[in-house]
C-alpha cells in the first residue's frame, strides 16, 4: 500500500469517467483515471450522435470547443419492408443556427481530446491499465488493484462501461441478463467530405442522421442507424441480445449487418466508401429497471456502468447521461472529500442529485418505453402496413383503380385496424 491515498481513482476513460475526472481535477482534487485502452476512446463505441443542450449546464467550459464531427440538421427515418421502404425526412431551419442541438461524434477522437482537457486541469489519465479488482478496507472500497499494484483512494468512481466489472465486484450490479442488453454493430466508411455533403444535401459542416426500422432486424427488437461524420459515415444496427438468441431460424449477428448494407436504401449512402473500422458494443436497454445500485461506501457508479442508457424509440441516449452522471458523481465526491465522509450514508446524496437531474427524471418518464418498443409487430406488421399503403397510393396498373380511401382502408384493415393494433395504440400512452 502506498503511504498516502489519492483523493479519487476513476476506473474507465469513457465520457462518465472523463467528466468526473475533469470536475474533480477542476476542484483541485488529486484524481487518477485508469483506462485499459491505449488511449481514452480506443475501447469506446457510439452509434454516433450526442445531444449537447443538456450538457451545457454540466460542462459549460468545454462543450463549445469539443471536436465533434457535424451538427445534425436533417433527420430521416426509413421504414423497411422486405422489398420496399418508406422514408420520412424532417428538417428545421432552427437546427442550422447556433447553438446546435446535436452533433455526430466519433469517440476515439473525442475522448482523447477530453482526456487532454482533464490533464490540463491536473488530473492524471493513465492508459494501458486494466483495473483487476477493488481494494477493500473495513468493509468499504478503498482503492483499486491493477497489474499487481494497489492504488489507495478515498473514493472510487466506477465508470467502466456497460459490462462494469467493478460494479459487479462491489455487489452493486445484477448478473448480466440477455433481455437487458442489445448488441450494436457499427461500420465506419470513409468518404470524401464534399461527397458526403452533396449526397446528403448538406452545407459545409452540416450533418444528417438516418434511422432505420423494420425488416432489417428480421422481426427482432432493434433498428439501424446512419450518421454523417466529417469524412466518414457511421452505419450500424442494434438488435436485442435476447431476441437474437431466440430468433428462428437462427442467424449470425454479423450477417444482419451484411444484409442491411445490401439494401438499396442503405447502399446508396455508402457507395464508393471504404470500410475503415468494424466495431461492436453492448447497450443497456433495460431502462430504469436495469439501473444498478449506484453507490456503496467509498464508491460511486456512473455512466453505462450504472445502466444509464435510454431507448426512446427515435432517439437513443447514453452519452449525455454518462457526462451528467460523471459530473454529478464528481460533485458528490468533492463534497464527501471535503467533509471527510465517504460513508454509504453520505454517498446516498449521489442518487438524490441524480433524481433531481434529467438523468433519472428522463429514465423515470420513459420507464415503460422498452415494453412498447419490444413489440415485435413494430418490426413486422407496421412496416408492411406502411409499405402496402404507399404501394396502393403510388402504383398504377392496367386494371381500374379503386378510390384511394377505399384502398387505404382495406390495407389498414388488413394490418392495423384490429384488436392487436388497438392494443398497440393504447400502449403508446406509456411513452
Amino acid at each position: 500500500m502506498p503511504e498516502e491515498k489519492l483523493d479519487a481513482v476513476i476506473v474507465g476513460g469513457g465520457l462518465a469517467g472523463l467528466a468526473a475526472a475533469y470536475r474533480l481535477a477542476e476542484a483541485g482534487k488529486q484524481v487518477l483515471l485508469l483506462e485499459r485502452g491505449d488511449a481514452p476512446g480506443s475501447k469506446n463505441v457510439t452509434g454516433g450522435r450526442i445531444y449537447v443542450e443538456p450538457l451545457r449546464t454540466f460542462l459549460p467550459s468545454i462543450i463549445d470547443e469539443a471536436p465533434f464531427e457535424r451538427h445534425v440538421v436533417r433527420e430521416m427515418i426509413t421504414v423497411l419492408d422486405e422489398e420496399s421502404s418508406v422514408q420520412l425526412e424532417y428538417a428545421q431551419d432552427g437546427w442550422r443556427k447556433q447553438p446546435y442541438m446535436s452533433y455526430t461524434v466519433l469517440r476515439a477522437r473525442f475522448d482523447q481530446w477530453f482526456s487532454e482537457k482533464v490533464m490540463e486541469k491536473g488530473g492524471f489519465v493513465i492508459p494501458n491499465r486494466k483495473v483487476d479488482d477493488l481494494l477493500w478496507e473495513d468493509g468499504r472500497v478503498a482503492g483499486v488493484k491493477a497489474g499487481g499494484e494497489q492504488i489507495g483512494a478515498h473514493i472510487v468512481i466506477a465508470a467502466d462501461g456497460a459490462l462494469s466489472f467493478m460494479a459487479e465486484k462491489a455487489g452493486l450490479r445484477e448478473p448480466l441478463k440477455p433481455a437487458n442488453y442489445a448488441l450494436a454493430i457499427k461500420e465506419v466508411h470513409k468518404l470524401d467530405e464534399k461527397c458526403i455533403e452533396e449526397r446528403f444535401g448538406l452545407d459545409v459542416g452540416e450533418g444528417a442522421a438516418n434511422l432505420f426500422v423494420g425488416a432489417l432486424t428480421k422481426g427482432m427488437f432493434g433498428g439501424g442507424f446512419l450518421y454523417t461524420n466529417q469524412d466518414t459515415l457511421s452505419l450500424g444496427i442494434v438488435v436485442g441480445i435476447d431476441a437474437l438468441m431466440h430468433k428462428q431460424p437462427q442467424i449470425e449477428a454479423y450477417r444482419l449487418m451484411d444484409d442491411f448494407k445490401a439494401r438499396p436504401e442503405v447502399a446508396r449512402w455508402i457507395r464508393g466508401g471504404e470500410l475503415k473500422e468494424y466495431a461492436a458494443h453492448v447497450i443497456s436497454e433495460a431502462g430504469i429497471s436495469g439501473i444498478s445500485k449506484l453507490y456503496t461506501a467509498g464508491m460511486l457508479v456512473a455512466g453505462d456502468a450504472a445502466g444509464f442508457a435510454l431507448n426512446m424509440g427515435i432517439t437513443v441516449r447514453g452519452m449525455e447521461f454518462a457526462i451528467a452522471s460523471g459530473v454529478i458523481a464528481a460533485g458528490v465526491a468533492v463534497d464527501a472529500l471535503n467533509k471527510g465522509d465517504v460513508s454509504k450514508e453520505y454517498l446516498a446524496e449521489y442518487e438524490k442529485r441524480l433524481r433531481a437531474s434529467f438523468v433519472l427524471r428522463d429514465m423515470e418518464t420513459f420507464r415503460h418505453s422498452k415494453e412498447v418498443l419490444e413489440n415485435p409487430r413494430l418490426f413486422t406488421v407496421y412496416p408492411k402496413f406502411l409499405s402496402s399503403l404507399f404501394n396502393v397510393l403510388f402504383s398504377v396498373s392496367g386494371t381500374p383503380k379503386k378510390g384511394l380511401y377505399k384502398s387505404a382502408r382495406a390495407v389498414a384493415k388488413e394490418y392495423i385496424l384490429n384488436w392487436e393494433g388497438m392494443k398497440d395504440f393504447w400502449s403508446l400512452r406509456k411513452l
Partner: protein
Amino acid sequence: MNIVVLAKQVPDPEAIVGIRGDGTGLEIEPKFATNLFDEFALEEALRLREKHGGKVKVITLGGGKATEVLRTGIAMGADEALLLDDPAFFDGDGYATALALSRAIQREPFDLVLCGKQATDDDRSEVGPMVAQLLNLPHVGGITKLDIADGKATAESPVEGGKAVVEVPLPAVFTAQKGLNEARVPLITGVMKAMKAQIPKVTPNELGLSTEEIGKAGSKVRIEQYLPPKKRAGVHFIPGDAGEAAAEAVRILVDEVRVI
C-alpha cells in the same frame, strides 16, 4: 556508475503508415510507443544501476510526443532525462542524429551508453555504432547479455549458429536486442511521478553545434521521396494434374524465381 540510455518514441507498430500524395513525406497515424529495443536498453540500465549503484539518464531527440519516451524512462525508474527538441535537430540522417546525441552524452562523465539496436520507424540501425565511433569508444551490437565487473564489460551477442562473447573496457556503447531482458511495466505511481517531472532541454548552441551540422542540414543522406511497397502481382495458378502441377511448381521455384 553513470549510465546513459538513448531512447526514441516511434509510431506504434499498429499505426497506419501512408505516403503523402506527392511522395515527399509519410502520413503516419498519431499513435506512439517506446521503441521496443530501447525498452530493453532502459531495463538493462536500471538493472545495472540496481546492482552497481549510480544513475541512469535517458536522452532523446525529437519534438512533440518524443518527450513521452523520457517520461516512460522516468516512470520505469530513470533518474534524469534530457530532451533535444530544437527543430534544428530534426529530420537528420543517422550521422546528424548521432552527432547531436554524442555531444549530449558528453556533457557529463559516463561509464556506459545503452540504446536499442534499431528504431522500428527508420529501421536504420546506425545511431548506436555511430555514437560509439563519434565518442571513439568500442561498442557491442545487438547484445543479449551484459555483465560489468572491474571497469570491464562482458557482453554476449548472437552470431549465426552460435553466440560471441566479447569483452570491452568501459566506457563503451551497447545496443540491445530482444532476449536481453523483459522490460518492466512501470508502476502507476511511477507514471504519475513521471507525468509531473520537469524535463530539461538542451539547444544546439549549448552542445557546441551549429545548426548547419545537425538535423536535415547536417545530413549526408537525403530522402528524395517515399514510394509504396511493391504489391504482389496476383496469383498465378499452375495448371495440370497433381503430378504436372507439382513438377511445374518445382521448376519455377528452382529455375525461374530461384528461391530454392
